[in-house]
């Protein structure tokens, strides 16, 4: 019985919502386009954030500190050094390896040309080395300096400071995008709230009559809720199409990477659907909140 009742009220509310969207067509279009514009920006911000995070991770994978070990170091000393390095907070002990002279020789020998050279230069002296992976690439300089200070470490080499700068720049971009997304979401909510406020203003007489004849606030609010939801969802359509086709186009256009092979973009299929989902949810939820907020002040007293 109660379910049937809710069903009837829902059906009527949805009908009312669509009626209102069409009746106030220009206003609806205005809020849909505003929502679309902000959601496009949200989409761009999400795509950028996603890519920046992925690129940062890639760079972190390849950035290592190579610590060359004194040739006269004993096995015990190397072992002690290993513990020392692995105990450093920023060192990823699981990925960090110790390559002995023979290891290095072996891996170099895989290349036939180098193998030849090595055979000719019999007295060519290779140094053994720790290849240290760090947890946070931002602190790589500090960690490298610490390792350099350890006993029996002859030299330390690590990624170019340019890469380092790139990563911190990416950090800034990522944070800026997050702030932008939040700001844009608020703007969208505000726009939808305002549209609905205007449509409500012309309907406040109607709302007042509904209240007078005993319609509950929930039932009065429901069509507005649906209206906001629908406006938000419609506003998300163009941004979603742009995300799906636009990003794939951009990806193909630049060949999946930016400037160098090091900066690899996220594949479209890994990112566009989740981004679209986020846009639908943001559009719908924000629309609902905006409209409920707009109608609330007419339901007092």
């Amino acid at each position, binding site marked *: 019985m109660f379910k049937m009742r809710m069903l009837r009220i829902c059906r009527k509310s949805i009908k009312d919502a669509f009626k209102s969207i069409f009746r106030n067509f220009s206003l609806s279009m205005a809020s849909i386009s505003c929502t679309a514009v902000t959601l496009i920006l949200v989409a761009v911000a999400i795509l950028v954030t996603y890519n920046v995070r992925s690129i940062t991770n890639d760079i972190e994978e390849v950035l290592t500190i190579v610590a060359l070990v004194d040739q006269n170091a004993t096995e015990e000393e190397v072992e002690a050094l290993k513990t020392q390095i692995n105990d450093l907070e920023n060192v990823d002990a699981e990925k960090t390896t110790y390559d002995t002279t023979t290891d290095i020789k072996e891996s170099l020998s895989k290349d036939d040309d180098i193998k030849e050279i090595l055979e000719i230069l019999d007295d060519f002296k290779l140094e053994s080395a720790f290849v240290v992976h760090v947890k946070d690439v931002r602190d790589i300089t500090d960690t490298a300096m610490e390792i350099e200070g350890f006993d029996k470490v002859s030299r330390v080499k690590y990624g170019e400071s340019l890469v380092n700068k790139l990563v911190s720049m990416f950090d800034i971009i990522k944070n800026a995008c997050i702030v932008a997304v939040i700001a844009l979401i608020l703007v969208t909510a505000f726009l939808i709230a305002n549209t609905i406020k205007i449509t409500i203003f012309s309907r406040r007489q109607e709302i007042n009559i509904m209240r007078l004849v*005993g319609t509950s606030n929930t039932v009065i609010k429901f069509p507005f809720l649906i209206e906001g939801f629908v406006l938000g969802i419609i506003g998300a359509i163009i941004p979603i199409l742009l995300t799906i086709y636009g990003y794939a186009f951009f990806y193909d256009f630049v060949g999946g990477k930016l400037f160098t092979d090091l900066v690899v973009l996220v594949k479209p299929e890994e990112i566009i659907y989740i981004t679209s989902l986020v846009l639908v949810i943001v559009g719908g939820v924000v629309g609902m909140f905006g409209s409920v907020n707009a109608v609330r002040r007419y339901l007092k007293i």
Partner: protein
Amino acid sequence: MEFIELKNVFKVYKNGVSALADVNLSISKGEFVFIIGQSGSGKSTLTKLLYREEKPNRGSVFVGNINVSKLKNGNVYKLRRKIGVVFQDFKLLPKLNVYENIAYPLESYGMKDSEIREKVLKALERVGLKEKIRSYPNQLSGGEQQRVCIARAIVNEPKLIICDEPTGDLDPKISKEIMDVLDKINREMDSTIIMATHDREIVNRMKKRVVCLHEGVIVSDKKKGSYVQNENA
């Protein structure tokens, strides 16, 4: 306790206007009561307190065991479903036709279509407007619109009907017809009717209980059958 009880009710509007002062009034079930008084004497304010369009600043208002003055905003609809209200300006929804206007409250309560239909037709019959069922408000005369408003007020068969100058904008002949409809509803449905008016003609003819307000104070409360002579409205 009586069906309706106002105890030491004071109403001061936000702008400082004192509309009601120390009003005490009790009305029993099935009564037909006129509220009369000059313009600005507080008649509308008194009726608004009953259906909680306004809240008293002091005192309490009871309608059929509901403490209206303490009713939460979100629960006001529960009270309104038990009260039918008839307005001077009808307050019909312009985009709905006669049938839809009367059906609207019941629809919004989630009632079944068949049940709604039955009730709407019954209400229309009571007010004598069956032939205009598909007309829109702007295609109706004032008297006809008022009948629609009354039909909407009685469609859920409320025990209390509140009318605020229902004949205010109507000519004497139509006013009389509207009063006959209300009188019939009062007798047949056993609904309590409270009607604010300053139409002395009607009050004198109907011979019902008359409560007279002056500057927000009840100055007289004459039982059924009284004749109002010195009403300076």
